[in-house]
């Protein structure tokens, strides 16, 4: 039963959703550098793919590419590369892609709500989910998978309901083909989202496709594999990548889990605490409070079909919650944050539990939800703008007129920000690779699942530093790189460490850029002494 509001009212809610969606993506256009920790690495991959055949960028010389059967992690970058061709740069292509993803957040939720015959005004809750911690950490593939999952689930619900009706076979087959493509897209965006989707799709197909009663449900269970046949292509792709691809390459570190109590404490942080301001916390908790009000004042179910859909809604939310608490924290030596990132889906599926009543009892809380969505977007816009003005400053001046195809090492002694909770400067050096080619280290290109990987002959001397600047040793690393970019109050060359000499060629606020001085003789290593590195306490430096 869909309760249809009068036309003026429907129009008002549609406009509220449009405004909320636009406010959600507004912050993406408020700065040249967005405060997302991994973002520069994604830009670098997109630029490398775009210029792979360009000798000046040296992309092909430094990197090899992962194919469809090597890695599950390339759809975001391939689409970004296509948009970069259209708009002229990886940064422009990525902003457009992120904006389309951001707009899709509330509209994909609306598609699911419509499919489940629920109040589509609840889609207003979908907009603020975009500005979660997963976005400011820069888990862009994962963030992009959320609307794909919701759209796909909406199709699954329609498919399951159609199985009980008399829909033309051609339409069911076409929907199945669409679902197969969406499932493949989900797998090539993020494995965690794909696994959650597979479980939820099975639940929805089973619950909505079977009749009522225990016997009917059991019969439905037996029919489930046939009804989920569209999952086969993506399941085969997953199997191939897991067994033969790069996923199998790292088996050194095993799997780790986070205690549930710790995860419980982190849930609100990862759901809505993206910025250091208290505003997003207050608005996030306000959204939770509105949700509680809508649950308490919830409208009763009218018939058995509605009750069945409600049960499914609870199960879909429970599956998201289960994924948050049960997925491992790390797999292997490189896949991390696998559990906490699922907070995004906990927030995304929460609106399915809400049942707004007709009249003011439903409209007032939903109007509050609209105001909260707009507030979160505007606050994010302000924070993004302030981050650019105060902390990024004239960073681009440092890189201006740099030669193409060089090798840059970034030592981020101070990766923190006064504006965002994540560490947005950790991989900032990758902006060099995004604009001028070459390589920038530390890079995810050292990781097995990354679509661009260093060729063995061009791997940096020290592997898997994760950007820890204290591991830098001039004699070992200096020879490999042409430039060193630092951030923070540390001059790694102040003590004249053994190895190449460096000249300061750029500075802006916390940033310093050094070029290797090939004309000056190297500082020799004194017998019996070692380089303590840039983070050694002053006493160690003095005794050197």
């Amino acid at each position, binding site marked *: 039963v869909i309760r249809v509001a009068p036309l003026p009212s429907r129009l008002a809610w549609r406009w509220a959703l449009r405004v909320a969606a636009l406010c959600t993506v507004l912050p993406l256009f408020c700065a040249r550098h967005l405060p997302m920790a991994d973002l520069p690495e994604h830009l670098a991959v997109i630029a490398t793919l775009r210029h792979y055949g360009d000798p000046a960028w040296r992309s092909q010389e430094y990197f090899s590419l992962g194919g469809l059967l090597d890695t599950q992690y390339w759809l975001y970058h391939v689409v970004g590369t296509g948009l970069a061709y259209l708009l002229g740069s990886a940064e422009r292509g990525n902003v457009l892609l992120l904006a389309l993803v951001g707009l899709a957040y509330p509209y994909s939720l609306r598609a699911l709500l419509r499919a489940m015959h629920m109040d589509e005004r609840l889609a207003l809750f979908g907009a603020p989910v975009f500005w979660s911690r997963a976005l400011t950490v820069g888990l862009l593939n994962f963030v992009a998978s959320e609307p794909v999952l919701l759209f796909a689930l909406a199709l699954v619900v329609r498919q399951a309901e159609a199985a009980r009706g008399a829909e033309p076979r051609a339409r069911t087959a076409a929907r199945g083909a669409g679902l197969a493509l969406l499932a493949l897209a989900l797998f090539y965006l993020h494995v965690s989202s794909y696994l959650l989707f597979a479980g939820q799709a099975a639940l929805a197909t089973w619950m909505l496709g079977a009749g009522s009663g225990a016997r009917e449900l059991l019969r439905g269970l037996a029919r489930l594999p046939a009804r989920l046949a569209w999952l086969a292509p993506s399941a085969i792709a997953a199997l191939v990548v897991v067994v033969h691809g790069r996923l199998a390459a790292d088996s050194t570190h095993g799997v780790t889990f986070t205690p549930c109590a710790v995860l419980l404490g982190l849930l609100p942080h990862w759901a809505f605490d993206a910025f250091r301001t208290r505003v997003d916390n207050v608005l996030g908790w306000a959204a939770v409070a509105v949700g509680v009000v809508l649950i308490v004042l919830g409208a009763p179910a009218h018939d058995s079909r509605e009750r069945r859909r409600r049960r499914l809604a609870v199960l879909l939310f429970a599956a998201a919650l289960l994924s948050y608490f049960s997925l491992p924290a790390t797999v292997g030596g490189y896949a991390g944050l696998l*559990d906490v990132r699922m907070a995004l889906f906990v927030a995304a599926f929460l609106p399915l539990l809400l049942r707004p009543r007709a009249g003011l009892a439903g409209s007032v809380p939903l109007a509050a939800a609209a105001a909260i969505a707009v507030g979160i977007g505007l606050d994010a816009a302000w924070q993004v703008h302030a981050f650019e003005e105060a902390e990024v400053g004239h960073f681009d001046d440092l890189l201006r007129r740099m030669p193409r195809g060089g090798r840059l090492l970034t030592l981020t002694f101070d990766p923190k920000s006064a504006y965002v909770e994540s*560490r947005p400067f950790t991989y900032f050096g990758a902006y060099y690779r995004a604009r001028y080619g070459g390589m920038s280290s530390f890079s995810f290109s050292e990781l097995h699942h990354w679509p661009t990987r260093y060729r063995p002959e061009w791997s940096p001397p020290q592997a898997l530093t994760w950007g820890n600047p204290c591991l830098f040793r001039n004699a070992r690393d200096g020879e490999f790189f042409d430039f060193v970019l630092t951030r923070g109050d540390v001059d790694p060359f102040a003590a004249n460490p053994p190895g190449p000499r460096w000249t300061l060629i750029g500075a802006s606020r916390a940033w310093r850029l050094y070029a290797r001085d090939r004309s000056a003789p190297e500082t020799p290593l004194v017998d019996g002494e070692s380089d303590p590195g840039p983070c050694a306490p002053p006493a160690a430096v003095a005794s050197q």
Partner: protein
Amino acid sequence: MRKKILILVVPITLSMFACLSAPNEPAAPTSAALNCGAGEQPFNGACRETCTSNADCSGNLVCMDVGSGVDLCLDYQHCAHLDNDSVCDAVYGGSTSYPYEEPPPPYPYYPFAGCVGDAHWLTAAATGSPSCGQQHTVNRCRHTPSGCALVQETTLDIADP
């Protein structure tokens, strides 16, 4: 029909905004951009004269400290340094917040993501010859054995573009 128009108009509008807000790829340097003449040094994309006082600089340029003991003739107006932290928060990043933790912990990782202050950049008019390079005593939020705490340190201001 309206839906089809929207599907066309929205990406085109977003593309325009993307082109306005995000940079295009820089043009390739026409020559060896970092090669400068005698008495010059490349700095922030241009060759700048080295100096010891304002008298060494021509025109409206001022001799400024750019850090690492280097003074250059620049047309910048300000010196800047990172001011005091007034708060010191322990930030929790996630069960595996590495590489966002400080210091990077052993594997497996713990949710503590670091100590974060609220210092902002303070600019002041460039005066002196050379200008900038002044030492400032500031409070910094640091990870100490007793947790996150404000610690007194010194920092130098440098030329601010």
